[in-house]
């Protein structure tokens, strides 16, 4: 088996040619409002994500965090506001188009393809990067196989990186929750995103696993320069990992800044933390 050379591989794959410097503006969310019938999930929120940073979104349950991610990757269409990603403003797009632009994500309620193995799940992340058409697929031997092997190599690197070799062939439906989350991260990484959205990646994990997960996140961020936006309720993780934090409270933004500022912000403590962390 090839020796994993994650760095080279994943780095090469990142759609890095967006011409944005590290620290430049990658994503800008302007005055977004979203409501469902009577429920106002998001009201008039703006924030930005800089290239290369880890950005956390926190807030009490039902604050609109997941909805925010859904807006960013095109699953929800906000009633108002606009989103600028890599300098391109967009009104509304289908999720698979957002993926095409380099946005990948994981889900709060694990959304894996239950009937497929870990390997296949991660391989689906590469669907849009594979190009051989149906004709070649049917013949298989030849170009399709070569393409498959090429992408398989990448995926195996991700599997090695996430340390899930042992469950490579297991159908993911029966995996324990924590491993499912890891597979999901693998699938998102396989898309070689420039912006990775993580929705509670550590929920349901014990400390050891959270540490592992943190390690993966940091590594992805530092070594491959992938920008990460993450939602998490474990304050230890959030404070340690993130560069900047935005705090939502029932659809409104109540704070935005570096971890220390947020940690000591009275509004945040009242609305969310309970006690200073």
């Amino acid at each position, binding site marked *: *088996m090839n020796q994993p050379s994650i760095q080279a591989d994943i780095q090469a794959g990142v759609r890095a040619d967006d011409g944005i410097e590290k620290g430049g503006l990658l994503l800008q969310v302007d005055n977004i409002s979203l409501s469902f019938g009577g429920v106002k999930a998001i009201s008039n929120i703006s924030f930005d994500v800089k290239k290369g940073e880890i950005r956390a979104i926190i807030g009490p349950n039902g604050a609109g965090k997941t909805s925010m991610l859904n807006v960013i*990757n095109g*699953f929800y269409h906000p009633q108002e506001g606009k989103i600028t990603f890599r300098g391109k403003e967009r009104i509304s797009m*289908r*999720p*698979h188009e957002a*993926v*095409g632009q380099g946005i*990948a*994500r994981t*889900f709060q309620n694990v*959304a*894996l*393809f*239950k*009937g*497929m193995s870990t390997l*296949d799940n991660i*391989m*689906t*992340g*590469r*669907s*849009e990067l*594979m190009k*051989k058409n*149906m004709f070649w*697929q*049917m*013949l*298989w031997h030849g170009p*399709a*196989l070569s*393409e*498959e*092997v090429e992408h*398989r*190599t990448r995926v*195996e690197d991700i599997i090695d990186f996430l340390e899930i070799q042992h469950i490579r062939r297991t159908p993911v439906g029966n995996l324990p929750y924590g491993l499912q989350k890891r597979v999901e991260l693998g*699938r*998102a990484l396989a*898309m070689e995103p420039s912006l990775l959205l993580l929705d509670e990646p550590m929920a349901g994990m014990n400390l050891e696993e959270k540490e592992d997960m943190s390690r993966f996140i940091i590594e992805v961020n530092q070594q491959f320069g992938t920008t990460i936006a993450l939602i998490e309720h474990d304050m230890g993780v959030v404070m340690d990992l993130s560069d900047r934090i935005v705090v939502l409270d029932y659809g409104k933004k109540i704070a935005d800044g570096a971890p220390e500022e947020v940690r000591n912000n009275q509004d945040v403590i009242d609305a969310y933390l309970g006690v200073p962390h």
Partner: protein
Amino acid sequence: MLYRITGQFKTNYRSDYALFPVRQDMFLLAVILFFAWVVFPLMASEFAFQTLLIPVLIYALAALGLNILTGYAGQLSLGTGAFMGVGAYACYKLVTIFPDLNLMLAIGFSGLFSAAIGLAFGLPSLRIKGFYLAIATLAAQFFLVWLFEKWSWLYNYNASGAIQVPTIDMFGITVSGPTASSMVQYYFVLFIVSVITILAINITRGRIGRMWKAVRDMDIAAELVGINLLRAKLIAFGVSSYIVGVSGALFVFLWRGAAEPNLFDIPLSFRILFIAIIGGLGSILGNFLGAILIIALPVILNIIPEAFGVEVDSSLLEHINIMIIGALIIAVLIIEPHGLARIWAVIREKLIIWPFPH
């Protein structure tokens, strides 16, 4: 340890992608193919050809088509019979308009017609899901059968409204029509079924197959990882209807010899659905196992009492037969909802770790 797989290491990904990475599977397949290509044709009687071998292959092919749509792409369809009809009528028109057309080609082309219609009826699948879609496919089922009945051009204005297969030669050998020999027909069918099966295996294990399975398992998530749902579903409808159409053409041209519109009605669709589900959704092997169970078993049940010289009232026998099939369907589902293919997989697992229980 009959099924010992330890020690069979793969040194590169390419060999991991061999059709049968495990040696024992390969051996088993070789045995099956040997039987299919050599032993059966030598031993089979006319009756066995006509009621067991040929229909099992054709039904398995139809089920394979359905399985791609339902088992792989997760779109339940109840209209398989009508799409077989499209293939059959298309083939009939082709061979009557171009009498010199090679039958193999004609059958290949007729699949295209049913694929086209399959695509049209697949369009709503982007919005309509689950059982709603299943019932919607019934619209195709009933509309098409009605059309077969009413559009007399399709059956060349026959008084009876039925189509009769003409005698067709290929390379000097009669392959269809009443005088064709069963063995020739069997080989013809076996050849097409083998080729399509291999192509289907390839397509289901690659990128497109994964896209389908993703759509099946969770279509929202599939879209959120970048899969274009409409395209994935339409490809599934197209490929599936193509195969189903081909099987329909084989059904009429290489087996039945004649067809009336309501042959393609709902009972046919259901029988194929049985095969696909009992065999195992999302499995290629399952279609063949299912076809053996659903098509061959009743035939065998029917001749058992006779073979033992027991006189059973034929209607009673039929009642019992129907009950047995019904009970069997339920029993298989209870024992293993994933069908015969999974039962085989479990047996294989057990053989691998045998003699240890876990």
